[in-house]
Each structure stands twice: as structure tokens, then as C-alpha cells.
């Protein structure tokens, strides 16, 4: 039986880090993830962990130190948000291509400008092509649970992993949470035993080669394979975690989708709000459901196709805009998945919502379902690229 607690999402992540007791943390403060290195520094300074904490001068150096430490043979971690994640971006590519399973906690926040400290997913979506695994949490519990599974997944495929939650909405809000006992965490996460590492006295190692066109593409193909292989690992680790805690995880979560005719696809904390909207509509006899994407990288294309193929209409909710005069990033990938699978029945629209912390209410989601009902009955999709709850 787990330990019942009340923690904010940031506290829960820091607590998971403490239980894992990694070797090195390199971090730089930025709202709203600042608390994570703060809590963790207290663990370090009070001798509750063995971790070496590097208080770097920037996020760029935070990820650079993680790359150095992980390549040297250590478990390295960091935490960041927003512009901090942007500033790391160049190094995120290097971490992934060097196949270093670093773990990065992201408390998602909007990007400047205008400068804004509240939640949306533009930071995480901006780095979606860096080659990192990306898991998103709906609740504080999921942020904690995802973090405990992160290293198992990343180290199995040799890719770095981002554990994303919604800034302030879960990072700062306090929720009831069930913690896993320390011994169980240690046994579940296990020891890090890299095959090759810089500080191996028996075998020197060279990291970060210059690759000509003769070799570059093969290295990228291997990265792509690791990302494909990660799907099965995420399922397996999620099932094993479920056997230990009763909370099982996959790539997506389907909510009341069995006979759904209209559905929304959503990521993060707004899934909780949307589930309440689904419940209320279901009470009124509406056949509505929800798909929550937990793993955005790897992208759960097959799972989404299976879940969506029988609906009449769906809306993909993007808490970010690609500014391509067409759609947000998740809508593009969902539609590509459906098209590639030959599924053309369901009518799909895209909503850009919740930017810069714009509140997402149950009524907001009910409005989306009302639009979907209209589309399902008329077959007329209208404009697919829509903004939700915005003054125009």
C-alpha cells in the first residue's frame, strides 16, 4: 500500500528524484519549475541524497553538464520551463543523438512574447523534433508516476526523456497523491549500468563525432528506430508499474470511448476538465468520449487510429499554435496518422486553446462537443483551424 500525501506537482517530482537518488543534477531556475531544483537542493544540502548538484549559470549549461555527466557514466537530471527549454534546445538534439538517457522535468509554460509565466504547451511542442521521449501528465499523481517510470524507459532505448506537466495548474496546485515506498522505487528503477562511458578505466570512449554524409543518416535512422522501439517499452514499464501500484499506464488513455460518436484528443491537465465535461454530457445522453495522449514522443499513431476510427467527429486540442495558417502540431499528426491508416470517415477539427494560461472551463469543452455534434449531424466541417475562448 502506498503512502498518502498532499503535494504540488513540483514537490512530487522533487520527491521522486529524491527517492531515485540520481548521481548528478544540473539546473537553473525558471518559473514555474524553479521549485524542483529548490526542493532538491535542500535534499542535497541536508544529506538526504548522494547527488552532486551543479548550480549552473544557464539552462544551456544545465543540459551541457547533464550531457557531460551522463556520458561519463552517471544518471543526470534537470528541470526547466518555457524559455529555459528553448535555451536548451540545441543541447537537446545533442543529448538525443549521443543516445544519453537524461531525464528532464518540464513544468510547461508559454513562450515570450508577450512575456507570460502561465501554462500552455508551446515550450514542449517547440522541442518535439529534438529526439526526446515526451510523457505528459494530467495530474500531480501522473507527474510523479511518470517520473518513476522515466529512467526505465529512457535507459532501455538509449534516449533522453522529458516528463512534462502543466505549469502552475499541476506544478503548484496541491493534490492528494499516493507515493510509492522508497525500497519499491529503488527496486523498480534499478541501477544505471551503461555499456560504454567516459570514466571507464578499461576502455576509453569518444563521444560527439563529426559525421560526414556517409554516416550521418545511419545514425539518425538508429535514433528513429529507438523511438519506435520505445512504444513497447512504455507499455511494458507502464504495466509493470501498474502491477506494483494499481495504476497502469499506456501511450494513450481512452475515457468513455466505447460507443462514442464525438471525441476530443487532448494532452495534460485540461484532460481532467474535459473528463468532467464528458461526464456531464453523458448524463444528458450524449455519446461523447475523450482520448488523452500520455506519450507524445513516440507518437501513438496506431492507438489513436484504433480509438478514433468509429467516431463521427473529433476535435484535436492544441495548447500551442504552429503558426502555419493551418493547424496546431497535434492536429497535424493525428490527421497524418488517420490518413496513413486509410481512415477517412471521422471529420476532424482543430482547436487552439488555453494559450498563456487562458482558463479552460467545463463549458469551454462542452462548447467544443456542441460543435462536434453539429458537424456529426450535418457532415459540414466548416473551418478546421479554430481558436477557443478568444476575443476576436
Amino acid at each position, binding site marked *: 500500500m502506498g503512502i498518502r500525501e498532499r503535494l504540488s506537482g513540483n514537490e512530487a517530482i522533487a520527491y521522486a528524484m529524491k527517492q531515485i537518488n540520481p*548521481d*548528478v543534477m*544540473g539546473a537553473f531556475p525558471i518559473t514555474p519549475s524553479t521549485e524542483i531544483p529548490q526542493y532538491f537542493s535542500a535534499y542535497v544540502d541536508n544529506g538526504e541524497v*548522494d*547527488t*552532486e548538484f*551543479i*548550480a*549552473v*549559470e*544557464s539552462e*544551456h*549549461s544545465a543540459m*551541457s*553538464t*547533464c*550531457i*557531460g*555527466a*551522463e*556520458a*561519463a*557514466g*552517471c544518471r*543526470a537530471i534537470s528541470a526547466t520551463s518555457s524559455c529555459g527549454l528553448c535555451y536548451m534546445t*540545441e*543541447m537537446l538534439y*545533442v543529448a538525443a543523438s549521443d543516445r544519453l538517457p537524461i531525464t528532464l522535468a518540464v513544468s510547461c509554460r508559454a513562450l515570450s512574447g508577450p512575456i507570460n509565466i502561465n501554462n500552455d504547451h508551446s515550450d514542449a511542442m517547440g522541442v518535439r523534433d529534438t529526439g526526446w521521449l515526451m510523457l505528459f501528465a494530467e495530474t500531480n499523481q501522473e507527474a510523479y508516476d511518470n517520473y518513476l517510470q522515466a529512467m526505465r524507459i529512457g535507459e532501455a532505448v538509449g534516449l533522453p526523456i522529458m516528463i512534462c506537466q502543466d505549469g502552475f495548474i499541476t506544478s503548484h496546485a496541491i493534490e492528494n497523491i499516493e507515493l510509492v515506498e522508497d525500497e519499491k522505487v529503488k527496486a523498480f528503477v534499478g541501477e544505471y549500468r551503461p555499456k560504454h562511458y*567516459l*570514466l*571507464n*578505466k578499461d576502455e*576509453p*570512449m*569518444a*563521444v*560527439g*563525432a*563529426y*559525421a*560526414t554524409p556517409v*554516416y550521418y543518416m545511419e545514425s539518425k535512422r538508429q535514433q528513429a528506430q529507438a523511438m519506435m522501439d520505445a512504444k513497447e517499452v512504455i507499455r511494458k514499464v507502464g504495466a509493470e508499474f501498474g502491477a506494483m501500484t494499481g495504476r497502469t499506464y499506456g501511450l494513450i488513455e481512452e475515457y468513455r470511448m466505447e460507443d462514442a460518436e464525438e471525441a476530443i484528443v487532448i494532452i495534460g491537465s485540461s484532460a481532467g476538465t474535459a473528463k468532467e465535461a464528458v461526464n456531464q454530457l453523458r448524463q444528458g445522453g450524449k455519446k461523447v468520449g475523450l482520448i488523452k495522449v500520455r506519450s507524445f514522443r513516440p507518437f501513438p499513431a496506431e492507438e489513436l487510429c484504433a480509438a478514433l476510427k468509429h467516431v463521427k467527429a473529433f476535435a484535436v486540442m492544441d495548447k500551442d499554435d504552429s503558426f502555419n495558417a493551418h493547424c496546431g502540431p497535434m492536429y497535424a499528426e493525428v490527421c497524418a496518422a488517420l490518413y496513413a491508416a486509410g481512415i477517412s470517415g471521422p471529420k476532424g477539427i482543430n482547436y487552439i486553446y488555453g494559450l498563456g494560461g487562458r482558463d479552460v472551463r467545463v463549458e469551454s469543452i462542452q462548447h467544443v462537443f456542441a460543435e462536434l455534434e453539429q458537424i456529426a449531424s450535418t457532415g459540414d466541417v466548416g473551418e478546421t483551424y479554430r481558436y477557443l475562448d478568444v476575443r476576436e
Partner: protein
Amino acid sequence: MNYNLKENLMREERLSGGHRMCAGCGSPIAIRTVLRQLEPGDKAVVTGATSCMEVSTFMYPYTAWKDSFIHNAFENAAATCSGVETAYKALKKRGKIDETWKFITFGGDGGTYDIGFQSLSGAMERGHDMVYVCYDNEAYMNTGIQRSSSTPHFADTTTTPAGTVIPGKLQKKKDLTKIMVAHGVPYVAQTTFIGNFKDISEKAHRAIYTPGPAFLNVMAPCPRGWRYPSEKLMEITKMAVETCIWPLYEVVEGKYILSYEPKDKRPVEEYLKLQGRFAHMFKPGNEWMIEQVQQEVDRNWEALLKLCEL
């Protein structure tokens, strides 16, 4: 132990031959000389900033580095090295490592004076037990000889061409060595190749075996960028020292120590005339440029002598 060139050269090379650096380039000489000062039994992890040196020594599937080596990016060699050094501390604390490892970073002036400056400053301030070696060739040579903040006054580079209106680089060279001294690190030194390599060898040994952060600034000429015949390398570094354009000194725990005082300080022309990048300064009507450089060098030299008297 007294320095002995023969003994030093008998040590195993830790950067093997066959890499792709140009003949007459100072960078591999700096690297080989610094790495030779590691005690033969000691292990090392070397970090390299993106540079000529990196792309020429570590082109997949070959590496010239016999020690563990990590290249990350252009601007973050110091931060990367600080991560490796911290990993060593972490693994040592957990009893997973017994042997002694040293941590040495190499970067060009672009990766050190400019784009990597913040990363370097941060790593030095945090006090990692590492040596940062700048091989200073006074421009971005890897991308084709563009000016850096280390490029000397009036030098002709591809982004400061000696034109009809603007005569080369308008700004003076940044004094990075003194900026590193201002970080309060235990050991900072400026050196180059001279005579039997005693100066650079002893400084490298001190830098590696001084606990805490150390910074070594090594003038490392570039035959393409400076435009000299490759066999003139040692003549150029010698004249840089004899003219006091590149004085040799070290700063131990904040105390300035002059390593070499020329008996007969040579005029700057004797250094400038050896290099194509300064050729325009010798054209009729441009005498003022040489005069100005002489004044700058004199002023800097006097200031250094005063610091060394303190």
C-alpha cells in the same frame, strides 16, 4: 622535477598522428604538449569545443584521441567538462571509481573568448577541478577566418577585410587572461611555444595538478589565417614574445609572476611583418597603424610589469 625536453618527448603521445590539422598549425602542438604533462599513470577525459581541432581529430569512425574524449557543441565545452568532472566526484563518492582522473578542455578563441565565454565563466566560478586550455589563433578559423574578440587591432580577416575605408579590425584584442584572473581561480597562465617548450610544459603541469579550476591561454598561430609559411610557426611565436605582444606570465593564487622578460624588447614590426594579415599596415601612409599598435603593446607591457612587481 626539472624539466627535460628529451624525457618529455619520450612520453607516449596522447593525441595520435594522422589527424587532419594543417601543417604549421599551432593547435595540435598545444594539445600534444599539454597532454604530455599528464603523469603517465593518470587517466584523463578531454573535452573539445567545436573547432578545426574537433572536426579534424574526431571524424567518424576515427579518433586521434587516446583518452576518453567528448565534443558537445561550440559554446559549451567548459560546462560539458564540468558535468564530466562532477560525474567523477559523484562516482567516487559512491565508491564506483578508485583511479585518478584529470579533466582538460580545449577550445579555440571563438569558443572561449566569445560564444563559450559564459559557459567558461560559469565553470571557473563554480570551482570545478579542471583545466581549460584556449588555443588562441585570433579568429574563427574553422569557418574561414572571421574576426573574434581575440583578433588583434587592424588584422585583416574575412569579416574585417582591410578595405579602402576601413583598414581591418577596428577594435583591440580582448584581454581574456586577465579576465580569467579576475575570476579568482587558483591558477591562470599565458604561454606559447618557445625554445625547448619548457614554459608551456611547466605551466600545463601546474595547471593540471593545481586543485580547482585553472586556465591556460596558449597563442597557437594559424598558417592560413595569419598567412605565414608553415615552417615559420616557431619564429612567429618567438617574435610575439620578444616584442611583448604576447607576454609569458602566470598568476598563482592572484599573484602575478612574469615568466620571461626580453633582454632586448623588439619593435612590433618584427612580429607584424611575418604575417600576411598585417601586410596592409606596411603600405605607405599606414605608418600610424604600426605606431598605434606599438603604443598599445608598450602600455600593456608596462601595466603587466607593474602587476608583477606587486
